[in-house]
Protein backbone atom coordinates (compact mmCIF):
# COMPACT_ATOMS: atom_id res chain seq x y z
CA UNK A 1 0.00 0.00 0.00
CA UNK A 2 1.73 3.14 -1.15
CA UNK A 3 1.46 6.40 0.67
CA UNK A 4 -0.81 8.59 -1.36
CA UNK A 5 -2.73 11.69 -0.46
CA UNK A 6 -5.93 9.70 -0.79
CA UNK A 7 -4.74 7.23 1.84
CA UNK A 8 -3.76 10.04 4.18
CA UNK A 9 -7.10 11.81 3.71
CA UNK A 10 -9.04 8.57 4.23
CA UNK A 11 -7.07 7.76 7.40
CA UNK A 12 -7.67 11.23 8.83
CA UNK A 13 -11.38 11.21 7.96
CA UNK A 14 -11.85 7.74 9.46
CA UNK A 15 -9.99 8.73 12.63
CA UNK A 16 -12.12 11.86 13.11
CA UNK A 17 -15.35 10.05 12.22
CA UNK A 18 -14.56 7.18 14.58
CA UNK A 19 -13.77 9.60 17.41
CA UNK A 20 -16.91 11.66 16.80
CA UNK A 21 -19.25 8.66 16.43
CA UNK A 22 -17.84 7.07 19.56
CA UNK A 23 -18.17 10.31 21.49
CA UNK A 24 -21.79 10.73 20.42
CA UNK A 25 -22.93 7.20 21.14
CA UNK A 26 -20.83 6.67 24.25
CA UNK A 27 -22.61 9.66 25.77
CA UNK A 28 -25.88 7.91 24.95
CA UNK A 29 -24.57 4.63 26.40
CA UNK A 30 -23.37 6.43 29.49
CA UNK A 31 -26.70 8.15 30.08
CA UNK A 32 -28.65 4.96 29.46
CA UNK A 33 -26.28 3.05 31.70
CA UNK A 34 -26.54 5.68 34.41
CA UNK A 35 -30.30 5.54 34.13
CA UNK A 36 -30.36 1.76 34.41
CA UNK A 37 -27.98 1.75 37.37
CA UNK A 38 -29.85 4.51 39.18
CA UNK A 39 -33.29 3.00 38.44
CA UNK A 40 -34.55 5.73 36.09
CA UNK A 41 -35.16 5.55 32.32
CA UNK A 42 -32.45 7.83 30.93
CA UNK A 43 -32.90 9.37 27.44
CA UNK A 44 -35.59 7.19 25.83
CA UNK A 45 -37.87 9.63 24.01
CA UNK A 46 -36.08 10.48 20.74
CA UNK A 47 -36.17 7.52 18.43
CA UNK A 48 -36.10 3.84 19.41
CA UNK A 49 -34.30 3.43 22.75
CA UNK A 50 -33.43 7.13 22.54
CA UNK A 51 -30.96 6.42 19.76
CA UNK A 52 -31.69 9.77 18.09
CA UNK A 53 -30.67 11.68 21.20
CA UNK A 54 -26.96 12.11 20.17
CA UNK A 55 -27.72 13.74 16.79
CA UNK A 56 -30.23 16.01 18.49
CA UNK A 57 -27.64 16.96 21.11
CA UNK A 58 -25.05 17.56 18.40
CA UNK A 59 -27.40 19.84 16.45
CA UNK A 60 -28.22 21.75 19.61
CA UNK A 61 -24.55 22.24 20.48
CA UNK A 62 -23.63 23.32 16.96
CA UNK A 63 -26.44 25.85 16.59
CA UNK A 64 -25.84 27.54 19.93
CA UNK A 65 -23.93 30.80 20.12
CA UNK A 66 -20.35 30.61 21.34
CA UNK A 67 -20.30 32.94 24.34
CA UNK A 68 -16.92 34.21 25.44
CA UNK A 69 -17.12 35.58 28.98
CA UNK A 70 -15.97 39.14 29.58
CA UNK A 71 -12.39 39.45 30.80
CA UNK A 72 -11.51 36.02 29.45
CA UNK A 73 -8.30 35.45 27.54
CA UNK A 74 -9.93 35.07 24.14
CA UNK A 75 -7.09 33.31 22.33
CA UNK A 76 -6.56 30.70 25.04
CA UNK A 77 -10.30 30.30 25.54
CA UNK A 78 -10.79 29.40 21.89
CA UNK A 79 -7.62 27.31 21.50
CA UNK A 80 -8.18 25.11 24.56
CA UNK A 81 -11.07 22.93 23.26
CA UNK A 82 -9.26 22.34 19.98
CA UNK A 83 -6.12 21.39 21.88
CA UNK A 84 -8.19 18.92 23.90
CA UNK A 85 -9.36 17.23 20.72
CA UNK A 86 -6.01 17.08 18.83
CA UNK A 87 -4.18 14.46 20.94
CA UNK A 88 -7.19 12.16 20.83
CA UNK A 89 -7.32 12.26 17.02
CA UNK A 90 -3.54 11.92 16.71
CA UNK A 91 -3.46 8.82 18.90
CA UNK A 92 -5.92 7.02 16.62
CA UNK A 93 -3.31 7.23 13.86
CA UNK A 94 -1.09 4.63 15.46
CA UNK A 95 -3.60 2.39 17.26
CA UNK A 96 -3.84 -0.95 15.44
CA UNK A 97 -7.42 -2.23 15.36
CA UNK A 98 -6.26 -5.44 13.70
CA UNK A 99 -3.35 -6.83 11.70
CA UNK A 100 -4.16 -4.56 8.74
CA UNK A 101 -6.46 -1.90 10.12
CA UNK A 102 -3.90 0.64 11.26
CA UNK A 103 -3.23 4.05 9.75
CA UNK A 104 0.47 4.14 10.52
CA UNK A 105 2.30 1.47 12.48
CA UNK A 106 5.14 3.21 14.31
CA UNK A 107 8.09 1.68 16.13
CA UNK A 108 7.48 4.00 19.04
CA UNK A 109 3.69 3.80 19.05
CA UNK A 110 3.32 3.59 22.83
CA UNK A 111 5.56 6.61 23.30
CA UNK A 112 3.66 8.58 20.70
CA UNK A 113 0.32 8.06 22.42
CA UNK A 114 1.72 9.23 25.74
CA UNK A 115 3.54 12.17 24.13
CA UNK A 116 0.30 13.45 22.62
CA UNK A 117 -1.70 12.64 25.72
CA UNK A 118 0.55 15.08 27.57
CA UNK A 119 -0.94 17.88 25.44
CA UNK A 120 -4.23 17.29 27.22
CA UNK A 121 -2.84 18.82 30.40
CA UNK A 122 -2.04 22.05 28.56
CA UNK A 123 -5.58 22.13 27.14
CA UNK A 124 -7.14 21.83 30.60
CA UNK A 125 -4.83 24.49 32.05
CA UNK A 126 -5.56 26.92 29.23
CA UNK A 127 -9.30 26.29 29.50
CA UNK A 128 -9.35 26.89 33.24
CA UNK A 129 -7.13 29.96 33.10
CA UNK A 130 -8.51 31.42 29.89
CA UNK A 131 -12.12 31.47 31.09
CA UNK A 132 -11.21 33.71 34.06
CA UNK A 133 -13.31 31.84 36.53
CA UNK A 134 -12.07 30.79 39.92
CA UNK A 135 -13.85 27.46 39.75
CA UNK A 136 -12.26 26.93 36.37
CA UNK A 137 -8.75 27.66 37.66
CA UNK A 138 -9.16 25.48 40.75
CA UNK A 139 -10.54 22.62 38.70
CA UNK A 140 -7.76 22.96 36.14
CA UNK A 141 -5.07 22.84 38.82
CA UNK A 142 -6.75 19.81 40.35
CA UNK A 143 -7.22 17.98 37.05
CA UNK A 144 -3.67 18.57 35.91
CA UNK A 145 -2.07 17.61 39.22
CA UNK A 146 -4.15 14.43 39.04
CA UNK A 147 -3.09 13.77 35.45
CA UNK A 148 0.59 14.26 36.26
CA UNK A 149 0.42 12.04 39.35
CA UNK A 150 -1.24 9.19 37.54
CA UNK A 151 0.95 9.44 34.47
CA UNK A 152 3.92 8.22 36.53
CA UNK A 153 2.63 4.78 37.62
CA UNK A 154 1.08 4.38 34.17
CA UNK A 155 4.41 4.98 32.42
CA UNK A 156 6.29 2.75 34.88
CA UNK A 157 3.85 -0.05 34.09
CA UNK A 158 4.35 0.54 30.38
CA UNK A 159 8.13 0.39 30.88
CA UNK A 160 7.71 -2.96 32.62
CA UNK A 161 5.83 -4.34 29.64
CA UNK A 162 8.28 -2.84 27.15
CA UNK A 163 11.12 -4.48 29.09
CA UNK A 164 9.37 -7.85 28.93
CA UNK A 165 8.44 -7.70 25.26
CA UNK A 166 11.34 -5.62 23.97
CA UNK A 167 9.20 -3.53 21.65
CA UNK A 168 7.27 -0.26 21.66
CA UNK A 169 5.44 -1.08 18.44
CA UNK A 170 1.78 -1.63 19.25
CA UNK A 171 1.41 -4.20 16.48
CA UNK A 172 4.35 -6.24 17.72
CA UNK A 173 3.05 -5.97 21.27
CA UNK A 174 -0.18 -7.64 20.14
CA UNK A 175 1.67 -10.15 17.95
CA UNK A 176 3.63 -11.24 21.03
CA UNK A 177 0.35 -12.13 22.74
CA UNK A 178 -1.25 -14.01 19.86
CA UNK A 179 -2.44 -17.57 20.20
CA UNK A 180 -4.93 -17.45 23.04
CA UNK A 181 -5.70 -16.17 26.49
CA UNK A 182 -2.72 -17.97 28.08
CA UNK A 183 -0.33 -15.76 26.14
CA UNK A 184 -1.87 -12.48 27.21
CA UNK A 185 0.20 -10.06 29.27
CA UNK A 186 -2.63 -9.97 31.78
CA UNK A 187 -1.56 -13.32 33.23
CA UNK A 188 1.52 -13.76 35.41
CA UNK A 189 4.54 -15.11 33.62
CA UNK A 190 7.81 -16.53 34.81
CA UNK A 191 9.68 -13.25 34.40
CA UNK A 192 6.87 -11.07 35.70
CA UNK A 193 4.67 -12.75 38.32
CA UNK A 194 2.94 -9.48 39.26
CA UNK A 195 1.33 -8.84 35.88
CA UNK A 196 -2.30 -8.87 37.17
CA UNK A 197 -1.29 -6.18 39.67
CA UNK A 198 0.25 -4.16 36.85
CA UNK A 199 -3.03 -4.53 34.94
CA UNK A 200 -4.96 -3.24 37.93
CA UNK A 201 -2.61 -0.27 38.31
CA UNK A 202 -2.95 0.55 34.62
CA UNK A 203 -6.73 0.25 34.78
CA UNK A 204 -6.98 2.59 37.77
CA UNK A 205 -4.59 5.05 36.14
CA UNK A 206 -6.67 5.04 32.95
CA UNK A 207 -9.76 5.90 34.98
CA UNK A 208 -7.86 8.75 36.62
CA UNK A 209 -6.23 10.00 33.42
CA UNK A 210 -9.60 10.26 31.69
CA UNK A 211 -10.96 12.23 34.68
CA UNK A 212 -13.75 9.80 35.40
CA UNK A 213 -15.50 9.03 38.65
CA UNK A 214 -14.43 8.02 41.25
CA UNK A 215 -11.54 10.26 40.23
CA UNK A 216 -13.41 13.13 38.54
CA UNK A 217 -12.14 15.76 40.96
CA UNK A 218 -11.55 18.10 38.02
CA UNK A 219 -15.26 18.50 37.45
CA UNK A 220 -16.72 17.82 40.85
CA UNK A 221 -20.16 19.32 40.25
CA UNK A 222 -21.02 19.75 43.89
CA UNK A 223 -18.04 22.02 44.59
CA UNK A 224 -16.73 23.35 41.26
CA UNK A 225 -19.94 23.90 39.19
CA UNK A 226 -18.64 21.95 36.16
CA UNK A 227 -14.90 22.12 36.51
CA UNK A 228 -12.57 23.58 33.95
CA UNK A 229 -15.30 23.83 31.29
CA UNK A 230 -17.72 25.79 33.47
CA UNK A 231 -17.69 28.80 31.13
CA UNK A 232 -17.91 26.80 27.92
CA UNK A 233 -21.09 26.45 25.94
CA UNK A 234 -22.05 25.30 22.45
CA UNK A 235 -19.34 23.50 20.46
CA UNK A 236 -16.51 24.55 22.82
CA UNK A 237 -18.12 22.32 25.41
CA UNK A 238 -18.89 19.82 22.67
CA UNK A 239 -15.22 19.52 21.74
CA UNK A 240 -14.21 18.96 25.38
CA UNK A 241 -16.85 16.27 25.62
CA UNK A 242 -15.74 14.60 22.39
CA UNK A 243 -12.12 14.74 23.52
CA UNK A 244 -13.03 13.16 26.83
CA UNK A 245 -14.84 10.24 25.22
CA UNK A 246 -12.19 9.81 22.54
CA UNK A 247 -9.65 9.60 25.37
CA UNK A 248 -11.74 6.89 26.99
CA UNK A 249 -11.68 4.89 23.76
CA UNK A 250 -7.91 5.35 23.52
CA UNK A 251 -7.44 4.29 27.15
CA UNK A 252 -9.52 1.15 26.56
CA UNK A 253 -7.58 0.43 23.35
CA UNK A 254 -4.27 0.78 25.20
CA UNK A 255 -5.40 -1.63 27.92
CA UNK A 256 -6.55 -4.05 25.24
CA UNK A 257 -3.28 -3.84 23.33
CA UNK A 258 -0.97 -3.97 26.33
CA UNK A 259 -2.74 -6.61 28.43
CA UNK A 260 -5.64 -8.27 26.64
CA UNK A 261 -4.09 -9.50 23.42
CA UNK A 262 -5.41 -6.82 21.06
CA UNK A 263 -7.35 -8.33 18.18
CA UNK A 264 -6.65 -11.94 19.23
CA UNK A 265 -9.44 -14.29 20.23
CA UNK A 266 -9.23 -15.72 23.78
CA UNK A 267 -9.05 -19.23 22.30
CA UNK A 268 -6.50 -18.32 19.65
CA UNK A 269 -8.92 -18.70 16.74
CA UNK A 270 -9.92 -16.21 14.05
CA UNK A 271 -8.14 -13.03 15.12
CA UNK A 272 -10.07 -10.07 13.76
CA UNK A 273 -10.97 -6.47 14.36
CA UNK A 274 -14.26 -7.53 15.98
CA UNK A 275 -12.45 -9.02 18.94
CA UNK A 276 -10.64 -5.72 19.40
CA UNK A 277 -13.90 -3.75 19.32
CA UNK A 278 -15.58 -6.26 21.64
CA UNK A 279 -12.77 -5.91 24.15
CA UNK A 280 -12.66 -2.12 24.14
CA UNK A 281 -16.43 -1.82 24.48
CA UNK A 282 -16.46 -4.29 27.35
CA UNK A 283 -13.79 -2.16 29.04
CA UNK A 284 -15.75 1.03 28.34
CA UNK A 285 -18.86 -0.61 29.79
CA UNK A 286 -16.88 -1.35 32.95
CA UNK A 287 -15.75 2.30 33.07
CA UNK A 288 -19.37 3.42 32.90
CA UNK A 289 -20.36 0.84 35.50
CA UNK A 290 -17.64 2.07 37.87
CA UNK A 291 -18.52 5.70 37.31
CA UNK A 292 -22.12 5.32 38.36
CA UNK A 293 -21.61 2.94 41.27
CA UNK A 294 -18.71 4.50 43.17
CA UNK A 295 -18.81 7.83 45.02
CA UNK A 296 -16.20 10.49 44.34
CA UNK A 297 -13.00 10.43 46.39
CA UNK A 298 -11.36 13.48 47.93
CA UNK A 299 -8.42 15.20 46.26
CA UNK A 300 -6.08 14.10 49.08
CA UNK A 301 -7.26 10.52 48.86
CA UNK A 302 -6.73 10.66 45.13
CA UNK A 303 -3.16 11.99 45.28
CA UNK A 304 -2.25 9.71 48.18
CA UNK A 305 -3.46 6.68 46.23
CA UNK A 306 -1.08 7.53 43.41
CA UNK A 307 2.01 8.66 45.30
CA UNK A 308 1.84 6.33 48.30
CA UNK A 309 0.38 3.15 46.85
CA UNK A 310 0.45 2.92 43.04
CA UNK A 311 3.93 4.38 42.42
CA UNK A 312 5.74 2.22 45.03
CA UNK A 313 3.98 -0.94 43.84
CA UNK A 314 4.67 -0.24 40.18
CA UNK A 315 8.32 0.58 40.95
CA UNK A 316 8.63 -2.66 42.88
CA UNK A 317 7.10 -4.52 39.96
CA UNK A 318 9.57 -2.85 37.60
CA UNK A 319 12.57 -3.85 39.72
CA UNK A 320 11.24 -7.38 40.22
CA UNK A 321 10.68 -7.83 36.51
CA UNK A 322 14.12 -6.44 35.70
CA UNK A 323 15.73 -8.85 38.16
CA UNK A 324 13.75 -11.88 37.00
CA UNK A 325 14.44 -11.07 33.34
CA UNK A 326 18.14 -11.23 34.20
CA UNK A 327 17.66 -14.60 35.97
CA UNK A 328 15.50 -16.40 33.36
Amino acid at each position, binding site marked *: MSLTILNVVIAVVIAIAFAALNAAYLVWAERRGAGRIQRRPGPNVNGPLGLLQPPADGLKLMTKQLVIPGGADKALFVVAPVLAMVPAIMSFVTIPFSENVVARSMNIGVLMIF*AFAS*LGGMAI*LFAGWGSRNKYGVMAAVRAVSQNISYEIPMLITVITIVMMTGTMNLKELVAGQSGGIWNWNLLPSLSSPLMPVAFLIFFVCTLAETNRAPFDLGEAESELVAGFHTEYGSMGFGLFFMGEYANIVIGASLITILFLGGWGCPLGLFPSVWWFLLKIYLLIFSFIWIRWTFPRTTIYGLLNLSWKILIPISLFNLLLTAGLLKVF
Partner: protein
Amino acid sequence: MNPSDTTTIIGFFTGDGFAGYADAIAGIVFLVMLATTLVGGIIACTAERLVRAVAGLALSFIGVAAIYYYLNSPFVAMMQMLIYVGAVCVTIAFAIMLAAPEDTKKNGPSGPLSGPLGLITAGLVTMGMTGLAVNTTFSVLPKENMGEVKLIGIELLTSYSMVFELVSIVLLIAIIGSLVIARHGRSK
Protein backbone atom coordinates in the same frame (compact mmCIF):
# COMPACT_ATOMS: atom_id res chain seq x y z
CA MET B 1 -9.35 21.24 -19.18
CA ASN B 2 -7.73 18.72 -21.49
CA PRO B 3 -7.59 14.98 -20.70
CA SER B 4 -3.95 14.97 -19.58
CA ASP B 5 -4.77 17.46 -16.82
CA THR B 6 -7.49 15.19 -15.48
CA THR B 7 -5.16 12.21 -15.29
CA THR B 8 -2.60 14.32 -13.44
CA ILE B 9 -5.18 15.30 -10.88
CA ILE B 10 -6.44 11.75 -10.45
CA GLY B 11 -2.88 10.48 -10.22
CA PHE B 12 -2.16 13.13 -7.63
CA PHE B 13 -4.82 11.68 -5.39
CA THR B 14 -4.53 7.96 -6.03
CA GLY B 15 -1.41 6.69 -7.70
CA ASP B 16 2.25 7.44 -7.97
CA GLY B 17 1.53 11.06 -8.86
CA PHE B 18 2.13 11.83 -5.22
CA ALA B 19 5.82 10.99 -5.62
CA GLY B 20 6.27 13.78 -8.12
CA TYR B 21 5.01 16.30 -5.60
CA ALA B 22 6.79 14.77 -2.62
CA ASP B 23 9.64 17.28 -2.60
CA ALA B 24 7.36 20.27 -2.90
CA ILE B 25 5.05 19.01 -0.16
CA ALA B 26 8.00 18.19 2.08
CA GLY B 27 9.34 21.70 1.56
CA ILE B 28 6.02 23.27 2.49
CA VAL B 29 5.72 21.06 5.57
CA PHE B 30 9.23 22.02 6.64
CA LEU B 31 8.45 25.72 6.23
CA VAL B 32 5.30 25.31 8.32
CA MET B 33 7.37 23.68 11.06
CA LEU B 34 9.90 26.51 10.97
CA ALA B 35 7.11 29.09 11.08
CA THR B 36 5.51 27.31 14.05
CA THR B 37 8.78 27.30 15.96
CA LEU B 38 9.53 30.96 15.21
CA VAL B 39 6.02 32.25 15.87
CA GLY B 40 5.93 30.33 19.14
CA GLY B 41 9.26 31.84 20.16
CA ILE B 42 8.12 35.36 19.28
CA ILE B 43 4.91 34.93 21.26
CA ALA B 44 6.90 33.61 24.22
CA CYS B 45 9.19 36.66 24.15
CA THR B 46 6.65 39.40 23.53
CA ALA B 47 3.45 38.26 25.25
CA GLU B 48 2.39 40.49 28.11
CA ARG B 49 0.48 37.79 29.93
CA LEU B 50 2.66 35.03 31.33
CA VAL B 51 0.22 32.25 30.49
CA ARG B 52 0.30 33.30 26.85
CA ALA B 53 4.08 33.27 26.96
CA VAL B 54 3.93 29.66 28.14
CA ALA B 55 1.51 28.86 25.33
CA GLY B 56 4.00 30.33 22.86
CA LEU B 57 6.80 28.32 24.42
CA ALA B 58 4.75 25.13 24.06
CA LEU B 59 4.03 25.98 20.42
CA SER B 60 7.74 26.50 19.81
CA PHE B 61 8.57 23.16 21.45
CA ILE B 62 5.99 21.41 19.27
CA GLY B 63 7.58 22.97 16.19
CA VAL B 64 11.00 21.71 17.26
CA ALA B 65 9.56 18.25 17.88
CA ALA B 66 8.09 18.29 14.39
CA ILE B 67 11.51 19.16 12.96
CA TYR B 68 13.06 16.24 14.86
CA TYR B 69 10.45 13.96 13.36
CA TYR B 70 11.13 15.39 9.92
CA LEU B 71 14.84 14.65 10.43
CA ASN B 72 14.06 10.95 10.95
CA SER B 73 14.38 10.93 14.74
CA PRO B 74 10.89 9.99 15.91
CA PHE B 75 12.17 8.93 19.32
CA VAL B 76 13.75 12.32 20.03
CA ALA B 77 10.63 14.05 18.69
CA MET B 78 8.34 12.12 21.03
CA MET B 79 10.67 12.73 23.95
CA GLN B 80 10.62 16.44 23.13
CA MET B 81 6.81 16.38 23.28
CA LEU B 82 6.64 14.27 26.42
CA ILE B 83 9.26 16.16 28.42
CA TYR B 84 9.18 19.74 27.17
CA VAL B 85 5.47 20.16 26.40
CA GLY B 86 4.03 17.60 28.81
CA ALA B 87 6.27 18.26 31.79
CA VAL B 88 8.20 21.54 31.50
CA CYS B 89 5.42 23.72 30.08
CA VAL B 90 2.78 22.25 32.36
CA THR B 91 5.02 22.84 35.37
CA ILE B 92 5.67 26.45 34.36
CA ALA B 93 1.96 27.05 33.78
CA PHE B 94 1.25 25.52 37.18
CA ALA B 95 3.74 27.83 38.89
CA ILE B 96 2.22 30.85 37.14
CA MET B 97 -1.29 29.91 38.23
CA LEU B 98 -0.27 29.41 41.83
CA ALA B 99 1.52 32.77 41.84
CA ALA B 100 -1.30 34.51 39.89
CA PRO B 101 0.76 37.46 38.67
CA GLU B 102 -1.66 38.47 35.92
CA ASP B 103 -2.99 41.68 37.40
CA THR B 104 0.32 43.06 38.59
CA LYS B 105 1.87 43.69 35.23
CA LYS B 106 5.11 45.62 35.47
CA ASN B 107 8.12 45.73 33.24
CA GLY B 108 11.41 44.83 34.82
CA PRO B 109 14.37 47.16 34.62
CA SER B 110 15.78 47.13 31.12
CA GLY B 111 19.34 45.86 30.98
CA PRO B 112 22.27 47.40 29.12
CA LEU B 113 21.45 45.28 26.07
CA SER B 114 18.10 46.97 25.39
CA GLY B 115 18.12 49.65 22.75
CA PRO B 116 20.73 50.23 20.02
CA LEU B 117 23.35 47.99 21.63
CA GLY B 118 20.97 45.03 21.58
CA LEU B 119 19.98 45.77 18.00
CA ILE B 120 23.61 45.82 16.91
CA THR B 121 24.34 42.58 18.78
CA ALA B 122 21.35 40.86 17.24
CA GLY B 123 22.36 42.08 13.79
CA LEU B 124 25.93 40.85 14.24
CA VAL B 125 24.83 37.45 15.51
CA THR B 126 22.36 37.07 12.63
CA MET B 127 25.02 38.08 10.09
CA GLY B 128 27.55 35.68 11.59
CA MET B 129 25.11 32.76 11.63
CA THR B 130 23.92 33.47 8.11
CA GLY B 131 27.51 33.72 6.89
CA LEU B 132 28.37 30.41 8.52
CA ALA B 133 25.27 28.71 7.11
CA VAL B 134 25.90 29.99 3.61
CA ASN B 135 29.61 29.27 3.50
CA THR B 136 29.55 25.80 5.05
CA THR B 137 29.32 22.87 2.69
CA PHE B 138 26.88 20.52 4.39
CA SER B 139 27.79 16.87 4.00
CA VAL B 140 24.94 14.41 4.06
CA LEU B 141 25.67 11.67 6.57
CA PRO B 142 24.54 8.16 5.69
CA LYS B 143 21.34 7.07 7.43
CA GLU B 144 22.43 4.44 9.92
CA ASN B 145 19.13 3.17 11.27
CA MET B 146 15.54 4.21 11.86
CA GLY B 147 16.34 5.71 15.25
CA GLU B 148 15.43 2.55 17.08
CA VAL B 149 14.97 2.83 20.81
CA LYS B 150 17.20 -0.13 21.63
CA LEU B 151 20.16 1.27 19.67
CA ILE B 152 19.69 4.69 21.22
CA GLY B 153 19.68 3.10 24.67
CA ILE B 154 22.85 1.13 23.99
CA GLU B 155 24.62 4.21 22.61
CA LEU B 156 23.51 6.35 25.56
CA LEU B 157 24.86 3.89 28.11
CA THR B 158 28.14 3.09 26.31
CA SER B 159 29.58 5.69 23.91
CA TYR B 160 27.77 8.68 25.35
CA SER B 161 27.50 7.74 29.02
CA MET B 162 29.60 10.78 29.99
CA VAL B 163 27.17 13.16 28.25
CA PHE B 164 24.27 11.34 29.84
CA GLU B 165 25.76 11.82 33.33
CA LEU B 166 26.53 15.48 32.66
CA VAL B 167 22.92 16.10 31.63
CA SER B 168 21.76 14.66 34.93
CA ILE B 169 24.15 17.05 36.73
CA VAL B 170 22.37 19.94 35.01
CA LEU B 171 19.11 18.67 36.52
CA LEU B 172 20.78 18.34 39.93
CA ILE B 173 21.96 21.96 39.72
CA ALA B 174 18.41 23.03 38.86
CA ILE B 175 17.05 21.23 41.92
CA ILE B 176 19.70 22.75 44.21
CA GLY B 177 19.02 26.18 42.73
CA SER B 178 15.30 25.92 43.37
CA LEU B 179 16.00 24.75 46.93
CA VAL B 180 18.22 27.78 47.51
CA ILE B 181 15.55 30.13 46.18
CA ALA B 182 12.84 28.44 48.25
CA ARG B 183 14.92 28.73 51.43
CA HIS B 184 15.52 32.39 50.77
CA GLY B 185 11.80 32.94 50.31
CA ARG B 186 10.93 31.28 53.58
CA SER B 187 13.34 33.35 55.68
CA LYS B 188 11.75 36.62 54.52
